[in-house]
């Protein structure tokens, strides 16, 4: 007799736990073959606010980790992803990606995590500075993470896009509330499971699924999100800018038509945009 497989209940990863939407709403997703796959949580503004709270709670602890420790945790996450890349590639293929593209995207995603793992203890030496002021003062500029950063991931590539946006933001000590691809949300559910088995503390990365039109306005206006990093269309950009003005939130948009697979999609720039600069004066003498 053919064994009936157990289907998984997709849950979002918030505050280190797997939860349904507080609203108990879901939306149905089907595979590329049209067959029913599962019900994905349709997260609400309230879910987003809960996620921001979880991220804010995790923030100070994460920011205080040594850069070396953050680097090792990101590297460990890459180890988890590489080992389970078959599962991730399978999920991408199930929702319409070509096998070769999915596999390549997965390799790039893992390498990108390692790229940012390496940045964790290096960006300070490139962004920070000692400033040669004319008076007898030791004057230096250091970076600090901004706090909770909202991320709105592109629909495609669902996983590589999401990871490429999260990695720089957490590498420099921020915590994240991210909205995954609306069209292909399931890989983000899998990603949550891998985050949970990495060494990343709960609450550092919180992943929501749901509808952009319902959630983008709250990303724009939530005052505790200190920055938003978004792959957004023209209308959403305007909405995000408008909302951001209320709390003078930093906004960074992904280029239109970015090459997610190329090295131009990574580097110091994404880190620089999510750190504050603090300049310190101290007298020299006696």
């Amino acid at each position, binding site marked *: 007799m053919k064994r009936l497989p157990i289907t998984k209940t997709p849950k979002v990863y918030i505050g280190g736990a797997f939860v349904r939407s507080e609203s108990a709403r879901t939306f149905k997703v089907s595979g590329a073959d049209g067959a029913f796959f599962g019900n994905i949580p349709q997260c609400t503004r309230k879910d987003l606010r809960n996620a921001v709270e979880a991220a804010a709670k995790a923030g100070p602890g994460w920011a205080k980790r040594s*850069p*070396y420790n953050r*680097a*090792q945790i990101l*590297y460990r996450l890459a180890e988890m992803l590489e080992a389970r890349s078959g599962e991730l590639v399978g999920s991408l293929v199930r929702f319409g990606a070509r096998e070769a593209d999915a596999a390549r995207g997965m390799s790039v995603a893992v*390498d990108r995590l*390692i*790229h940012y*793992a*390496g*940045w*964790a*203890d*290096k960006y*300070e*030496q*490139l962004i920070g500075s000692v400033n040669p002021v004319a008076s007898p003062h*030791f004057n230096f500029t250091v970076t600090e993470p901004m706090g909770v950063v909202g991320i709105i991931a592109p629909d495609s590539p669902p996983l590589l896009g999401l990871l490429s946006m999260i990695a720089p933001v957490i590498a420099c000590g921020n915590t994240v509330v991210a909205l995954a691809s609306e069209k292909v949300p399931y890989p983000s559910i899998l990603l949550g499971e891998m985050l949970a088995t990495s060494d990343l503390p709960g609450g550092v990365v919180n992943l929501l699924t749901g509808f952009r039109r319902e959630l983008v306005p709250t990303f724009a206006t939530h005052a505790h999100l200190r920055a938003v990093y978004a792959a957004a269309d023209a209308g959403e950009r305007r909405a995000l800018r408008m909302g951001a003005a209320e709390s003078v939130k930093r906004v960074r948009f992904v280029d239109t038509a970015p090459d997610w697979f190329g090295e131009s999609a990574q580097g*110091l720039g994404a880190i620089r945009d999510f750190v504050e600069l603090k300049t310190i004066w*101290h*007298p*020299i*003498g*006696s």
Partner: protein
Amino acid sequence: MPSARTKPGATRARLIFGDLWEFDPAPETADPKLRPRYDLFIGGRFVRPRSGRHFDSINPANERKLAEIALAGPADVDAAYRAATGAFRSWSALPGRERGKYLFRIARLLQDRAREFAVAETLDGGKPIKESRDFDVPMAAAHFFYHAGWADKLEYVAPGRSVAPLGVVGQVIPWNFPLLMLAWKLAPALAMGNCVVLKPAETTSITALKLAEILQDAGLPPGVVNFVTGAGETGAAVMGHPAAAKVAFTGSTEVGKAIMRQLAGTDRRMTMELGGKAANIVFDDAPIDQAVEGIVNGIYFNQGHVCCAGSRLLVHEPVAEQVVSKLKNRIRVLRVGDPLDKNTDLGAINSRAQLATIRRLVAAGVREGATLFQPPCQLPEKGFYFPPTLFTHVTQSHRIAQEEIFGPVLSVLTFRTVDEAIEKANNTPYGLSAGVWTEKGSRILRMSAELKAGVVWANTFNKFDPSSPFGGYKESGFGREGGRHGLLDYARIS
């Protein structure tokens, strides 16, 4: 405990921890997994030396033989350079991302085997297990991990310019931090895309050869790293080989100068990390107890076998008596003995020769009129040991205030003004490190500006990090190791 009501100035009976009862032994027992005999590591394989000769590596804690180490002659050094040269083209052409992955692997594999390496390091070199376990090995892994992350970011190191590897680098390292010095040398060279021929010190080759096993497990392409073992002659062959694009040396100033003479007339690049005679300066407003801990750590860490050791204590006159008295109390409870015991503070002196050097210089200190203090302590009968030693009434002209002793010997001098402290601190041909103890931030920064030293520690001492450049001024050498500054020393910039 002493009564709180004891009159000031009265001599009190002091209860010293460990006086009334003996410590139970607390030996570290992890298996160091040593082989009876180690060959050379050339072209990704262990190969027998063409010289046909091996020498013994002994445990300085009990003078027992640990393993036989191959003696590399000129033909072996040649073979190592040939292997490195052969590997350079494809290694340097690898995308930085992929080179970095090898270094990440090395870091992780070393972390996996950390305790085994710590025991091997302690057996081979004599340092206390708590230091090899908590400092040497984790810091070595951290250096590989840190530099791994640079390999795909080299374009950031020299903005507006392009960087390229130099070629094959010849490296010679000392016996005080065998694995850590190896990591300091290998990691940046490899991240930049160079290949390496490295010679460990003859008394401490074992962890390098154990690391060769990790390089094999990591799948590092053959020839990218080659280890040749031996003494001074082998070192001279590595430094002088015409195929080296650069040489990097850590060791004594005397040998550093000899290498510079040897290479005069070539356009070989060089990095020299040489001796030191660091001043550790304590002001009257310093947090005294914290300073005493820092002084002890500064000079007795690794039995004082530290090029940046705080071997000259400059103490402000108003607190001199207090500091010296607290220091003596602190030194009394340092435990000297079996390096594998987890309670040991000072292990074995690395070699009989080094022990003789320390004894000679300490005798000179006594002869020249300084006052010797050594706490009573029972040294093991076999092995090379020296008690923690403190000299007071030291003047600047004493040999113990001028020469690098490289042992657990502290010379105490005093000063009255900030300017006098600076003058005395800088009165040395060396310039590797310095320490400043004061609660006044502005004074720390002024001292930092005036001290001619490559590293200044303020209210701390002997701190190291892969991201923090380390290296000397003056006769302590040139070039830096660590941070993007150290990386640049392995790059051709165009």
